[in-house]
């Protein structure tokens, strides 16, 4: 160990009490899946953590009917305040078992323990707290008085924030009075199954939440199931498209949170050191496995060299390695497939003429790793400026004027996130107005909060998660009766010219 090196500081796994096999969580109990079980591995070591069940179509059917039964028999009849109380219970149980969940998440996903401990799991608890309070206040959610729940919600979530995505999906659905069948991503099912144990501790009525595991075909069967009233999906734009096609012509309500290619715009008056921290947070947080990552850096030409120098300097201090180590900044890439995709696109970036630079770090022998990397001299037509890489790879482009920055930022079919770095408030407001993205961070990046709506424009999907608007995805207005014409409604009959003159004539 050299002077100023950090000693290893791994978080203990002792508080984990994992099973060797996990079944499906249907109707309040764990049951064996009828498909072929698969292993879930630690992407930092490639060691098996546990065996996970696969739900086949019959299992999907059982889960949906359990959810339907619970909806008809229990959940839709429960008062809002009682639904809220269950959600408060869940929030508290998540807090109580936070450390255990953080360790399990890091083990299964490969992300650093400091992120699961300080971001993922606290946000899970916060999400349940926030929506717990909504359950008995739905009249104020924006769908009019006495809004109705939708029924059974099918929810399919990705591997980048496994438990957090679960919370984003389940909390508003239950608060609004729906029941749920959720399918976690194939590579990150573990914490969802620990969460199922929490539901048992909370004594949530059986069938209100069902968790079924498996690969994409399980998700497809769930989405296509005719007993489902609502589909909520977070993941790639390609899969989102196919879901949008498959629900066409049905009554199913759909919300999609898909890919992104976020622009992080740094103006010449920005506080550079803070901007550099924001760039790092934007693209290297969670190994860049973030749909709203700031994967395109748009830096004003006059400060390009300065920003890149300081960025490289900062990147040299990022610590890549054991995700359970409390000092680790960059953990493991979640899967071999994802690593292959990051490598392929990065190689393509080099072939297309962009200049590649990676932080100098030791790559562990086992597991899936990718050093933090930036590409300079990137042009807007390069694949690395257009395709979502979903890894710790930043493409740097330059601009001269605010108008050029806006045009380049919007030059993508995606529209999920963007960042603006400037000391000038009026410029921030004007640029924020013109960016076609659902979430914009001014002098910050990658901030999340249960009260703050999140979701995309354009091909980044539709619907919002978080905030009051996040409830709308799980509610419909009360059925209205009678004519809805403006003229015929007696209380609001406007005085037309005709009737006015008729009155005059009557006098």
């Amino acid at each position: 160990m050299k002077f100023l090196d950090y000693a290893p500081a791994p978080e203990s796994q002792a508080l984990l009490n994992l099973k060797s096999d996990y079944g499906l969580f249907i109707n309040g109990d764990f049951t064996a899946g009828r498909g072929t079980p698969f292993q879930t591995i630690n992407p930092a070591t490639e060691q098996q953590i546990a065996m996970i069940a696969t739900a086949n179509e019959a299992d999907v059917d059982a889960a949906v009917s359990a959810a339907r039964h619970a909806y008809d028999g229990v959940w839709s009849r429960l008062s809002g305040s009682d639904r809220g109380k269950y959600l408060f219970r869940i929030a508290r149980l998540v807090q109580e078992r936070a450390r255990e969940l953080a360790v399990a998440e890091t083990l299964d996903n490969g992300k650093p323990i400091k992120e699961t401990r300080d971001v993922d799991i606290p946000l899970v608890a916060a999400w349940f707290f926030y929506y717990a309070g909504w359950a008995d206040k739905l009249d104020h959610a924006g769908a009019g008085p006495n809004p109705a729940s939708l029924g059974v919600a099918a929810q399919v979530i990705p591997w980048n924030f496994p438990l957090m995505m679960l919370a984003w999906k389940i909390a508003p659905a239950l608060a609004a009075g729906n029941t749920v069948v959720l399918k976690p991503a194939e590579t990150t099912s573990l914490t969802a199954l620990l969460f199922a144990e929490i539901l048992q501790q909370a004594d949530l009525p059986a069938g209100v939440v069902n968790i079924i595991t498996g690969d994409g075909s399980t998700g497809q069967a769930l989405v296509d199931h005719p007993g489902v009233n609502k589909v909520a999906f977070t993941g790639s734009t390609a899969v989102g498209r196919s879901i949008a096609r498959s629900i066409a012509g049905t009554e199913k309500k759909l919300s999609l949170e898909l890919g992104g290619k976020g622009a992080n715009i740094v103006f010449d008056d920005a506080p550079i050191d803070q901007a550099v921290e924001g760039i790092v947070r934007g693209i290297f947080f969670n190994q860049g496995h973030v749909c709203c990552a700031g994967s395109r850096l748009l830096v004003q030409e006059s400060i390009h060299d300065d920003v890149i120098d300081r960025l490289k300097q900062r990147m040299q201090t990022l610590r890549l390695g054991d995700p359970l180590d409390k000092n680790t900044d960059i953990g493991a890439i979640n899967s071999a497939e994802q690593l292959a995709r990051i490598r392929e696109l990065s190689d393509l970036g080099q072939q297309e003429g962009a200049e590649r630079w990676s932080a100098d770090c030791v790559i562990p022998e086992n597991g899936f790793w990718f050093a933090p990397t930036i590409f300079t001299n990137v042009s807007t037509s390069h694949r690395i400026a257009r395709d979502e890489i979903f890894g710790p790879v930043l493409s740097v482009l330059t601009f001269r004027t605010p108008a050029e920055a806006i045009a380049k930022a919007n030059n993508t079919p995606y529209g999920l996130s963007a960042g603006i770095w400037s000391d000038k408030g009026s410029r921030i407001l004007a640029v924020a107005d013109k960016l076609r993205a659902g979430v914009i961070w001014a002098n910050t990046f990658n901030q999340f909060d249960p009260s703050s709506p999140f979701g995309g424009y354009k091909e980044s999907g539709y619907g919002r998660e978080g905030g009051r608007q996040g409830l709308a995805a799980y509610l419909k207005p009360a059925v209205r009766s009678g004519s809805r014409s403006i003229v015929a409604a007696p209380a609001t009959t406007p005085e037309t010219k005709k009737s006015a003159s008729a009155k005059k004539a009557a006098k």
Partner: protein
Amino acid sequence: MNRLAIPKTYKLYIGGKFPRSESGRVYEVLSHKGAFLANAAKGSRKDARDAVVAARSALGGWAGATAFNRGQVLYRIAELLEGRRVQFIDEITSCEGVTAAVASAQVDEAIDRWVWYAGWADKYVQVAGNANPVSGPFFNLSVPEPTGVVAIIAPQGGESLIGLVSAIAPALVAGNTVVVVANENAPLSAISLSEVLATSDVPGGVVNIVTGSPAEIAPWLASHADVNALDLVGAGNLDWVELQISAADTLKRVLPPESGADAAAPELSRILAFTELKTVWHTKAIL
């Protein structure tokens, strides 16, 4: 001796101008009794695409106009429609075979819907957006913005003027621009409405009206990559599931077909259907 009347040539309305269909095609519009009323332009794929180009180029100005200004313009439409009610009653009577009183009630309702929606222009943001109390030193605001270019299949049955107005007015409130395929059998009030729009300070390209066969034109709009949203309110008799599948390729926002007298009834939710919620986090200094 009776004066010989001057019949009107009914054309398309694209980019603020009144072109004939580039295809040169027309189709006969008949009265409810089967008598010849007019040759309407039979819009083509190219016309639809031209209309999308016009809608896209008008978007920046209309979306960027102040909410107060959009409200004023929409109200102006109501004013001018009021002034030309005789013409609309006449066309509705001959196309739909209803009495003048019934046609007059339809025009009343159409005018009042413009007024109702005009009033929303500077209010819907307040109702649908809000500040968010996030945990941290941030000023955080969510506001709805227009989705972009909206393609609409206008209601094909029932009251042609109300159907058209009810479909386009809510999309315009937020600052979207629209391409609308008119009622195929009763297109006259759509074409006459375009004359009202052209003189109501509605910038050219904000509303584009294509007459012709929805079955022929709708697929090109549903698959057009520069269309952001698709309102299938009047597509109930088309193969609308195919249209929805086609719209999924670019993840367009889609509203399903509606039928009956309450189709596209005036509601805030129709405005919000074609908006996108933008949330901006502003860092606060720590003092």
